[in-house]
């Protein structure tokens, strides 16, 4: 049952991701990316990483995509849709990405083992996060503060 759900949400996520980078309308692409991230959260649930799945839906679906859509509100979406895609760059992108994927999967297929879908909620993750990895955690909080101040300082209108 879990495996069927994994493949279902994995296929949905990949298809919506492809839709999001190929659609002419950027708003449609953003909404497709939102669906892709939410089904990726469901994929995390099917392998047992429940807390990561919840955080994925909240942060990616609720914060990052909404930030992109709000930034798009200030722009002219019709003019963005007139963007011309060069055939040569699309062919180069397809060639590079397929080559990279084949190389990675050839190496990855050598890794043996079995995925154990043990449930990891907030309790299991809190212990290493707040003891073993406390310093990186604090550094990340400073990074977020710096990013907030920097974003406000850059986007502010000059007097």
């Amino acid at each position: 049952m879990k495996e069927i759900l994994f493949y279902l949400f994995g296929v949905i996520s990949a298809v919506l991701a492809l839709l999001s980078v190929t659609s002419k309308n950027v708003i449609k692409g953003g909404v497709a990316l939102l669906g892709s991230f939410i089904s990726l959260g469901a994929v995390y649930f099917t392998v047992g990483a429940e807390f990561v799945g919840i955080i994925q839906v909240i942060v990616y679906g609720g914060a990052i995509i909404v930030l992109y859509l709000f930034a798009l509100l200030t722009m002219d979406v019709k003019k963005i849709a007139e963007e011309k895609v060069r055939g040569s760059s699309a062919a180069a992108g397809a060639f590079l990405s397929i080559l990279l994927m084949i190389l990675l999967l050839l190496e990855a297929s050598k890794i043996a083992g079995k995925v154990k879908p043990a449930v990891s909620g907030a309790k299991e993750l809190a212990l290493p996060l707040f003891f073993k990895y406390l310093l990186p955690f604090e550094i990340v909080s400073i990074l977020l503060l710096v990013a907030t101040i920097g974003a406000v300082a850059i986007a502010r209108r000059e007097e």
Partner: protein
Amino acid sequence: MTPFSLFLLSGLLLAIGLFGIVARRNVISLFFGLELILNSANVLLVGFSKLHGNYYGELFVFFVLAVAAAEAAVGLAIVVAIYRMKRSINTEDFRTLRW
């Protein structure tokens, strides 16, 4: 469940994101491709965490998420500032620094 299915999902997301970055010409679509590549790294981290039976891979997902949020905020601020100046987010119009 074999780990290969997780690797396959991660590889697909990486390939799609790379295709978007190379092929598209507007900055927002480039950011979408970037987010997809970060997500493929997250899938791989969760997969290896479940393969090895410990929680350290899943912890790294939080750090990746925080960096992705910071990158989106600063990147969008830069894009909005450039859009105010040039009235365009096409990368071919950003040629002020080109020699």
